[in-house]
């Protein structure tokens, strides 16, 4: 099933989005991170 993760990188203001497909995306904007995640597979290097 589809599980998306967003980790707040310790010691920074960055968020790391981790898709269920394994692709990752670094951003400073949570709206951008979720938009990238749910766009799977677009832009996920599949």
């Amino acid at each position, binding site marked *: *099933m*589809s*599980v998306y993760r967003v*980790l707040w990188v310790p010691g920074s203001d960055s*968020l790391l989005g981790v898709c269920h497909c394994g692709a990752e995306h670094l951003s400073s904007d*949570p*709206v951008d*991170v979720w938009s990238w995640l749910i766009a799977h597979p677009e832009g996920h290097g599949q």
Partner: protein
Amino acid sequence: MAPTTQIPRNQWYVAAYGSEIGADLKARTICGEPIVFYRASSGDVVALADRCVHRRFPLSKSRRVGDTIVCGYHGFSYDAAGACVAVPGQTRIPRTARVKSYPVAEQDSFVWVWIGDDEPADATTIPRAPWLAAEGWTTVRGMEPLAARHSLLVDNLLDLSHETYLHGGYIGTPEVAETPIATEADEGNGVVRVSRHMDDAECPPFYAKSTGITGQITRWQDIEYFSPCLYLLHSRIAPVGVLPPASGPDDQAFHVEVVYALTPETETSTHDFWMVARDFALGDEEVSTFLRDNNRTVVLQDVEALNLLEEILRTDGDAYQELSINIDTGGLAARRMIKSQNDTSPAATA
């Protein structure tokens, strides 16, 4: 077609605590639907539309005769399945004389009601909160009416950084707002998880007075939000540096399960059920009173803030650009999950 409601249908919602439903007729509006509840002679909870089919008189303002409700206006009588079994002055009962009967399930001290079509109601999908009715736990609870929409309470509970500012002196300390979170959206199970683990934090009065810990603490907050209704905050409190053992019970820590049931009453009001279950000081009335009073104060602080926000939404309208930062990651995930549930619910697809 865009949804005309913000409330997902074809979902289970908490309608009441089981202890609230007895022989008397009880009215409660759930997701805009007025419902009358009572406990039948079998012990089962009955939930029927709270409007007589004749002239819409509320059945909750009527009277019970056995397991039948006799309308207080003209005497239309309904059995526990909602079928009309008697009308005044004639023997023929119109074929359409029945009120809607709602699927109901009792679990973990809650009465759940299915809002939507009858067919998909599967009680095995209802999320669990076993601490509320389990041996080895003591629970305090309450319910506050919230004059604000469901989504505002979801936003509030998914971002606990507000504890530092809105609930300082109760459950908030500086570390809550300062500590990074990890967020997970589990689409298949309809769950959003948000974790905040504080290694060395000030102990807020809520936990200091209930556990007796006086120094710094290791404080973990692990949220599971089963959209749209059930919210679990697994709170672990221990002296600083005390972590769960690799195996065996985590008996050097204090565990508090803070549970909310977020049930829309209408599009702009919500039933805010709250519970605090603990695995220490079991049955200790002094601790129970302290936690009940303190948590109710915290909930009322939220109620005051969210009621204010609802009023602002009403007067300002939608003409502003919202700004989200890292602390909102969980709230954004929950919003998306609710929208997804709403997009597939009958009100949206009809």
